[in-house]
């Protein structure tokens, strides 16, 4: 995590924490001060833990640089808010590739491996982890040949050109089909941007805030019939609940803290 994104993260963690004293205060009349301190200490501990830089487990430094650069085009940082890079999508992808997803756990992996038709879906003998390894290496080789530099060192315009070349299949890669690699990268980027932050992406709930998604399932029985009325809640994640940063009902559903309209942003 870069210094800047760590600062952003701490800032946003503090913003979430700001919602806690309201809950704690509501309980303080019936609870001993020691318990309130415990809640505060726990929240502080959770914030500190979440702010620690997290080591990459699968990707090399060069691969991190490639993915950081690529995902910043796929979901760019702009006036609407953070992009995929800022939201930790590279780290999300690293974690996915290191885990069951990367090794095709619970998927059928026996050969033979003819290429098949588009209608027959994934037929590569490579696992997703291997697809990334080959795809990044081959794309960097293409960039070296064409521009004399690796992908991460190209200008924004050149990077854009390369990504469009992969997306449209115009760039031929040696070991994987370029569109196959690109689609996997795009899919995982979207997953990392919108999945629960527990997986390392969607940092500061950037993806959820972009679209106004309130996160973990909540009770909407009394709101579902309020037609055309905005529902603007501070999104709640799995870790907010397991870390007791969010209040919950008896079934574990979050009790939302609503956002005032002037704070709602987009």
């Amino acid at each position, binding site marked *: 995590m870069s210094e800047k994104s760590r600062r952003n993260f701490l800032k946003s963690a503090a913003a979430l924490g700001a919602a806690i004293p309201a809950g704690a205060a509501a309980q303080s009349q019936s609870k001993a001060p020691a318990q309130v301190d415990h809640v505060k200490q726990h929240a502080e501990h959770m914030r500190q833990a979440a702010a620690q830089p997290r080591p990459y487990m699968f990707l090399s430094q060069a691969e991190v640089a490639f993915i950081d650069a690529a995902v910043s085009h796929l979901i760019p940082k702009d006036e609407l808010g953070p992009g995929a890079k800022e939201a930790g999508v590279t780290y999300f992808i690293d974690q996915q590739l290191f885990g069951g997803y990367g090794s095709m756990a619970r998927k059928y992996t026996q050969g033979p491996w003819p290429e098949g038709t588009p*209608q027959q879906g994934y037929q590569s003998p490579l696992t997703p982890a291997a697809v990334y390894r080959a795809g990044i290496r081959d794309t960097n080789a293409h960039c070296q040949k064409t521009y004399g530099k690796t992908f991460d060192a190209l200008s924004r315009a050149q990077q854009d050109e390369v990504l469009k070349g992969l997306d449209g299949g115009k760039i031929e890669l040696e070991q994987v089909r370029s569109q196959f690699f690109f689609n996997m990268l795009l899919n995982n980027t979207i997953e990392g941007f919108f999945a629960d932050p527990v997986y390392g992406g969607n940092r500061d709930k950037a993806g959820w805030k972009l679209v106004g998604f309130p996160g973990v399932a909540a009770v909407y029985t009394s709101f579902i019939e309020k037609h055309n009325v905005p529902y603007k809640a501070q999104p709640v994640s*799995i870790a907010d609940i397991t870390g007791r940063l969010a209040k919950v009902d008896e079934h574990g559903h979050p009790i939302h803290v609503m956002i005032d309209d002037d704070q709602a942003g987009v």
Partner: protein
Amino acid sequence: MATKLKPVDVVTVGVGLTGTILAKELADSGLKVVGLERGGWRDTHPDFDMPHAHDELRYARRHELMQDLSRETLTFRNAIGDTALPMRYMGSFLPGEGVGGAAVHWNGVTWRFLPWDFETRSRTLARYGKDQLAEDCTSQDWGVTYDELEPHFDRFEYLYGICGKAGNLKGKIQEGGNPFEGARSREYPNPPMKTSHVGMLYGKAAKQLGYHPFPAPSANMTRPYTNPYGLTLGACVYCGYCERFGCEMGAKASPQTAVLPVLMKNPNYELRTLANVVKVNLDSDKKRAISVTYIDSRGREFEQPADLILLTSYVFSNVKLMLLSGIGKPYDPQANTGAVGRNYAYQTNGNVTAFFEDKIFNQFMGAGALSMMVDDFDGDNFDHTALGFIGGGWIGAASAGGRPIDFRPVPSGTPRWGSEWKKATARYYNRAFGITTHGACQSYRGNYFDLDPTYRDAYGLPLLRMTFDFRQNEYRMSDYMTKKAAEIAKAAGASRLSVTPRTGKYSIVPYQSTHNTGGAAMGADPKTSAVNKYLQSWDVHNVFVIGASAFPQNGGYNPTGTVGALTFHTLEAIKSKYLKQPGPLA
């Protein structure tokens, strides 16, 4: 070498929706029943507890509740002559694994097929003549009628607590329900779901066009409900996480909520999980099954003898086990002989996405079966003269949960990534909804199952091979229905539409529906059906094959309600006829 176990009366191969009902009822009648399930045990608590139960990545994207493909999958090709290749990832459909099966992660839309559906061929011939059917169409009558099944639909709906509004009570059309449905003997056990903004808008527009909107029949409880087994289901909270998820509220009808708590207490019942059945063993003249062979989680092989063997797995496993065991004659599409594997069909879904500039929908709220629907273009509810196709389906707008990895509507022409994509995603996430055209699918000579010649499962057995593509009938129907849906979207005030009827070859990649049907089709003629009207194998009389595998073709509805009715119909035949005098019932 298999260890031979003590004989029991009944074995169910699979412990999902059909296997639990049959086991419960037969164990109650005093029979010793063993349920064999390839997956593990799971229950509302702790398996579906908050907050982990509603994690989109884990369940919707990584399919935690679904079949483990590393052990077993199927192979697929579009046509005879192509090389089938294994389905390495799930996409088009999502079979379950583990206790409760796919009825754990279903949405809960619970229909009755139309009276017409059960007599597709004879009614089509009577009304339109034989030119209305494609030459290679093998759709047929079911051998059972709606009227015969009505009491069994009723029983299933009361067991699963279905929420809806009757449209036809004993022949009398009811305001607010589906006027096209077959006559019901009584009202649904629970009132329909609340109406979302999408449902309200869609219903209003449909009505304006002269159609007959009504709330979808739902297995998401609209109030706490105590079913005839004495089990109480919770009330749905419209959290928006049904399909692909378990329910933390116990508010979605499933084996876990509606059957298992009483079944598990019955001393006549024994559940064995992580037990994968690999064969049904027949006697020497192949007229009677004597046992099943299964392999447990420690690799031990067991032979479980039983008098009655009920195949109660998903479509694929039911058919595969018949083929592996030599139950009935495998279908040969070239010679057009045999029936096991014949009449595989699917669902022909189209979609219209409606975009608005001045409305918001909060589509992250909702429930799996929270939809407003019209049935005006289903079955033979409309005149097909000169349309060039038969069948149809419901057209509906759902509020089934807008989970953002998968639900990101953007107008067509929007780039797939970059700043413009991001802007459109932010703008329309809360300002768009989809209309589904849920089309039927007829059966054809070249669409079928057999055993794959190349690929094998983890037990060394051949994978099931699916050969399937849509035909002209389905493309025309989808085009017609999707145009109707677009008209409704326009009437609702949409600023922009994306209209996508079913076109092109069938692909196993994008999700369409877990509504696979056929392969062990029912019928009145053993030449063209694998099972009789009681879902009893024509060839091996103590094997019954229960599920959507029995549908000779697929109607325009979600299959579960009809699967439930067939289950009770089979149960009654076993109890009132078969047990008294074991032998062929038809």
